[in-house]
């Protein structure tokens, strides 16, 4: 074969490879993990889960409805919260449950119709719960062992897309928690009506933690609040729907605020801002060295200001730092073409005077993976001391944006020194995805993990089946499972 033929073959291979990869995204319809039909009941079979060699996974409880968190008392007794709310606007009763032998549960406390309860943490005799607050605003609750519920703080800005999350108690005796944002990227739009809250709370919007000056970017949309009207409205950043903004306009910061980590004293009291500029800070945990870390659910490709290609983030939290929302993703500016949705105009900044350059992330996780509750290994009886284990709830495509294959639906391990991410427990199948679309008995939507006090077992809270239909999220009650992972085969 002469050299011209060889060159021709090389370039032909190159073109075919390029065509295959470039055609993928546009020719392929969205194939997220919830985009399929499912028939009850949920199957449960640990053999359908592939886990790192040397480890075992087993179910310890099932039939739960929207479980989101787990904690342990001093004796090692496990407790779980059922959230009382799911995307898809399904409201049930939030509950704190004690896990009994044989997978049974005992109700310790019930909540008001203000879910989701997004986390639970036991500390010195009491339980501390983050009440997401979709209807009345977020709260931090204290629950005694005999089930008495009291409010330590209320009125947190949780009426929108994202909620009050991840409450944990530090060694300093403060309760730290995350406060998610109202919107995807600071602009209220049609996507927020689809979530369900815009018509319920038409004046709600994001609140900055510090004074910010806007660039005056406004976004046009049909008036969702008056569908009969054909008028278009303009909406600016950090403003209620249909309220435009001007260049140089100052939005006053206040506490409590959207997209932040805050803390309160154990017995309740003044709110203190720790850090801000997050989108949905969901999971919080202290490392064995006492450093606070957070998982942030990053931007979606939806709404008036869609953002493409934004990976979820694991951050080390530094006091008073700004982490970039709504103008940066994992430390990179949204004006970078990487984040422009295909076929759309390049994004512009919303804030004129950014507080600072955001810090660098510890790790960047999968786009739309919904990397949520996590914990650090502390014991050689489990191994990987110092590594973070993160539950990935999985994509909610196509609502969050299109994906070529399901993302998440697993537990991953992160080396926080290098930023390397490895699968730890995934469904044992030809393709990644939740058990419901694979027709198996494995993981569905892991939403949180927590090590027991001895550190020799990692418990995985599996939210259960949540499908994505044309109407939006369709969660399935009584499909939640608690799994336990231990070292040994």
């Amino acid at each position, binding site marked *: 074969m002469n050299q011209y033929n060889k060159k021709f073959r090389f370039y032909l291979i190159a073109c075919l490879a390029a065509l295959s990869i470039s055609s993928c995204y546009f020719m392929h319809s969205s194939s997220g993990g919830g985009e399929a039909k499912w028939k009850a009941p949920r199957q449960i079979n640990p053999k359908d889960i592939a886990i790192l060699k040397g480890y075992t996974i087993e179910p310890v409880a099932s039939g739960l409805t929207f479980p989101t968190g787990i904690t342990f008392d001093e004796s090692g007794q496990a407790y779980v919260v059922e959230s009382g709310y799911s995307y898809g606007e399904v409201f049930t009763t939030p509950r704190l449950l004690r896990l009994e032998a044989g997978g049974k549960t005992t109700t310790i406390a019930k909540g008001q119709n203000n879910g989701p309860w997004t986390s639970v943490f036991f500390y010195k005799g009491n339980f501390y719960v983050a009440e997401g607050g979709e209807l009345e605003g977020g709260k931090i609750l204290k629950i005694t062992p005999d089930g008495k519920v009291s409010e330590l703080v209320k009125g947190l800005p949780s009426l929108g897309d994202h909620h009050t999350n991840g409450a944990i108690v530090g060694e300093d005796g403060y309760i730290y928690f995350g406060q998610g944002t109202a919107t995807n990227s600071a602009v209220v739009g049609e996507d927020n009506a689809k979530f369900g809250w815009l018509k319920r709370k038409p004046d709600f919007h994001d609140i900055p933690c510090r004074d910010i000056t806007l660039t005056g970017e406004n976004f046009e949309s049909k008036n969702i609040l008056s569908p009969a009207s054909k008028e278009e409205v303009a909406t600016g950043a950090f403003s209620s729907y249909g309220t435009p903004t001007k260049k140089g306009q100052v939005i006053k910061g206040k506490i409590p605020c959207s997209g932040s980590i805050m803390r309160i004293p154990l017995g309740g009291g003044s709110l203190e801002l720790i850090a801000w500029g997050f989108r949905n800070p969901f999971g919080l945990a202290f490392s064995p060295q006492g450093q606070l870390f957070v998982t942030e659910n990053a931007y979606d490709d939806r709404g008036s200001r869609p953002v493409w290609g934004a990976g979820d983030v694991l951050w080390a939290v530094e006091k008073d730092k700004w982490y970039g929302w709504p103008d940066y993703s994992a430390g990179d500016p949204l004006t970078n073409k990487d984040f422009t949705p295909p076929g759309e105009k390049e994004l512009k900044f919303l804030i004129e005077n950014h507080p600072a350059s955001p810090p660098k992330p510890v790790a960047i996780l999968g786009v739309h993976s919904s990397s949520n509750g996590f914990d650090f290994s502390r014991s050689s009886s489990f191994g990987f001391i110092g590594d973070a284990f993160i539950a990935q709830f999985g994509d909610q495509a196509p609502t969050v944006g299109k994906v070529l294959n399901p993302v998440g639906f697993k537990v991953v391990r992160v080396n926080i020194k290098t930023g*390397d991410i490895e699968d730890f427990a995934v469904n044992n199948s030809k393709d990644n995805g939740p058990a419901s679309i694979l027709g198996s008995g494995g993981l569905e939507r892991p939403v949180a993990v927590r090590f027991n006090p001895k550190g020799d077992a990692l418990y995985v809270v599996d939210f259960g089946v949540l499908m994505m239909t044309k109407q939006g999220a369709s969660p399935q009650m009584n499909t939640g499972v608690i799994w336990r992972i231990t070292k040994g085969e």
Partner: protein
Amino acid sequence: MATTVFSGCSSSRKSEPFYGPLKGNDVKILDGQKVFMKNCNKCHPQGESGLGPALNNKGYVPSFIIKFQIRNGLGVMPSFSKERISPEELDNLIEYLKALRKK
């Protein structure tokens, strides 16, 4: 060509629960893994398909083609300049991708 087009979107399971960790302590591969995690993993999680197509199931593709695509982007995939991924880092990234595919 149609087979190539559509097979480019499928995935292969080669992560640690299936194949164990990457073998060896090759410094280039370990450095390449860091580059991958910082720049590529979010769209190709652990080399599998997610927002983007899988990278771990491709047959032989010459390194210069992979480098060309990384430097220039392709379709919805962004480009990565020398300021974002240095020439040395790019070489190490290629070594990591090769190691991932060999699993």
